[in-house]
């Protein structure tokens, strides 16, 4: 089966600064992958490139054998690290918006999750707390039947109880062939759900290994390995 994401010599420069430098990486399907690295290591740049929000300076990024475009946007469900919804909209309007634009959006799943989280669909987004807004965004993203879910800092702003629900949501909502790429600093919280990890530093690949390999060969948790590799 074709890999879901491939980077070939992927480079992104901002002025003289290399956000990503000659990155070669392949992500297979059916995994939950942690995209880890210190601040400024190029995680968000990679995510933006995968979503077609940036154009590479050099090299290629290929999603399901295609360059980023309309077809790849149909199969990627992306959660940005920030609030990206028009806060004047009501939750129910946003659900309609997703139904209108994404053929693979599962409205009943979204409604059920919002009910579980006790979020009022009549409420306007601006009246919701920061954490609740993040939950709404995650519900929207996980309610799409996508091939690749890209979650940038999905659990940063929510309480530990909601964090558990969200991780459970991620685990139960992705299908066998779908891939979940999660970028986060809270490694210990998500370590148990990860199949493999990608470590980035200075825009380059430092490590691409399964969690089992890290545990069996190095005898360390991902969190411990991260602290060792990126020691300041």
């Amino acid at each position, binding site marked *: 089966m074709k890999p879901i994401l491939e980077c070939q010599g992927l480079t992104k420069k901002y002025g003289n600064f290399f956000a990503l430098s000659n990155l070669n990486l392949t992500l297979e399907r059916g995994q939950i992958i942690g995209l880890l690295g210190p601040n400024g290591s190029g995680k968000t740049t990679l995510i*933006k490139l995968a*979503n*077609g*929000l*940036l*154009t590479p300076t050099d090299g290629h990024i290929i999603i399901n054998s295609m360059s980023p*475009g*309309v*077809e790849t*946007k*149909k199969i*990627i469900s*992306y959660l*940005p690290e*920030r*609030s*990206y*919804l*028009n806060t004047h909209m009501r939750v129910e309007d946003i659900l309609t*918006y997703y139904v*209108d*634009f*994404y053929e693979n959006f599962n409205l009943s799943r979204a409604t059920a999750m919002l009910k579980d989280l006790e979020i009022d669909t009549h409420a306007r987004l601006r009246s919701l707390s920061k954490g609740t807004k993040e939950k709404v965004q995650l519900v929207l993203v996980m309610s799409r039947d996508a091939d690749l879910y890209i979650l940038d800092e999905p659990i940063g702003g929510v309480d530990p109880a909601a964090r558990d629900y969200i991780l459970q949501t991620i685990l139960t909502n992705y299908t066998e062939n779908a891939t979940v790429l999660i970028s986060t600093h809270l490694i210990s919280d998500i370590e148990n759900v990860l199949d493999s990890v990608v470590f980035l530093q200075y825009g380059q690949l430092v490590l691409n290994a399964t969690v089992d390999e890290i545990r069996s060969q190095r005898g360390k948790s991902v969190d411990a390995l991260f602290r060792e590799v990126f020691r300041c």
Partner: protein
Amino acid sequence: MLGKLIKYDLKYGYKIILIVHAVLMVACIMGRFVLNKVDFRAPSEALGAMLAIFIALFALLIAGVSFATCAVIAVRFYRNLFTDEGYLTWTLPATPLEHLWSKIISGVIWYTFDILLCYLGLLILVTGDNVVSLYTQIAPEMTEALGMSFSSFTLYIVLFSLFSTLASVIMIYASITIGQLFPGHRILGAIISYFALSFIIQIFTLVCMLLFNLFPYVGDTMTGSTASHYLFSSLGLGVLLITITAIPEYFITHYIMKKKINLI
């Protein structure tokens, strides 16, 4: 996809646009009522001053309503594409071209709506019995001065305005998009770009007017067809130039949207 994008673009800010135009309509209806009560046969200084204030107020109101429409169009474009909302907009399964045309079509729809309602408001304001009977007295002189009847003259102005909506919308979008190339000063960049583009068009107009000898001779009294000829040549030239400059503006906007987007 284009239809859906346009639907949401029109949905944004429609309340503001409808409210300001409703206010304009109500003001024009009330103005018509007031004008019908004024006795124009007894001219006095007080009447002159009152009319001057009246005209200034309506000019301000119409300018304000048009500015509000323009602001809604610009804010929608900026917020939807270049702020945090852009993270959702740019990851919808649509091409940059579809995004651009959705914004152009919705912008032209709002601009056209604004122009038609502003002229309709003016029509309501000045077609009361009182004003009409007063105008009948000076109609031959006005026709002579304009070189055509006042209604034909107005129709031409409306057509000129409608024709320039597309180019005006593209100019707003081009300014905002060029402004995105200045990270950290995006809004300032957009405003400077807008003034720079306006300045370029003005310079072009001036040069063309000189080249085609469209300036009225100084000291010459302009009457009849000379005046309207001058007015329409300069207006036509303005519309023509803004349309011509809209072509590179359109391509620049599309190029930046396709290749140079960098959301912060």
